[in-house]
């Protein structure tokens, strides 16, 4: 944990949809420990984390049985998440992500994550690393 972190959570597990529930539960633990985080910051950060976690699981599911790690952190100014997996690198161009039309049943996830965050990075390499940052508007 960084010296200035107010609270953090760490999750590690197989790349399946139970991860999505696990990150939400971990976020609720974080908010209990740092209750001054505003409802809006909680909601939008949880939205971004939920979207990226779902994306990670959907890309990583398969015979390789990938493992995902998630680190969530709150400090005085910032909400941060780092997700890693050891699946194949995902072919995603964040600069080409756009909100799909009203009829679409999928494809909104990363557009929502970008809208809810100040900074989203995807680093493909030996697996994938995602870095999510939202500046606290209540800080």
């Amino acid at each position, binding site marked *: 944990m960084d010296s200035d972190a107010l609270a953090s959570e760490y999750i590690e597990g197989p790349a399946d949809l*139970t991860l*999505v529930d696990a990150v939400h539960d971990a976020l609720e633990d974080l908010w209990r420990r740092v209750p001054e985080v505003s409802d809006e910051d909680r*909601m939008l950060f*949880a939205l971004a984390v939920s979207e990226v976690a779902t994306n990670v699981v959907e890309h990583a599911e398969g015979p390789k049985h990938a493992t995902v790690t998630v680190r969530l952190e709150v400090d005085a100014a910032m909400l941060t998440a780092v997700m890693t997996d050891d699946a194949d690198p995902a072919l995603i161009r964040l600069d080409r992500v756009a909100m799909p039309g*009203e009829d679409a*049943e*999928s494809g909104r996830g990363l*557009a929502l994550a970008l809208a809810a965050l100040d900074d989203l990075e995807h680093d493909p390499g030996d697996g994938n690393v995602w870095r999510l940052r939202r500046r606290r508007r209540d800080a």
Partner: protein
Amino acid sequence: MNITVHTVNGAAVVAVAGRLTATGAPRLRQAVEDAVAAGTPRIVIDMSDTEFIDSSGLGALIGGLKSTRLADGDLRIAAVPEAVRRVLKLTNLDRVLREYPSAEAAFDGQ
């Protein structure tokens, strides 16, 4: 997430409690399909106890909207909390998913 279904004035009221994410979205799709198959294509999603929604949940709502309209019905959302309304606005889906104050009011004027 927990789903319960009951009928009010000929419409199926599907109440979604908890977080509507990729974990629960398939169950919502199934509940809507079951209601349509049972001859109740007018469906209200009661969101009074919905704590959170993300794009997977939105996808299930849009899928339900399409399948109910194909069956000459409709899917409407009721008792929408602020956390859900915010996501509908971010995705412009507030234009296609009409919001009603309560499940009972959703099909009042048909």
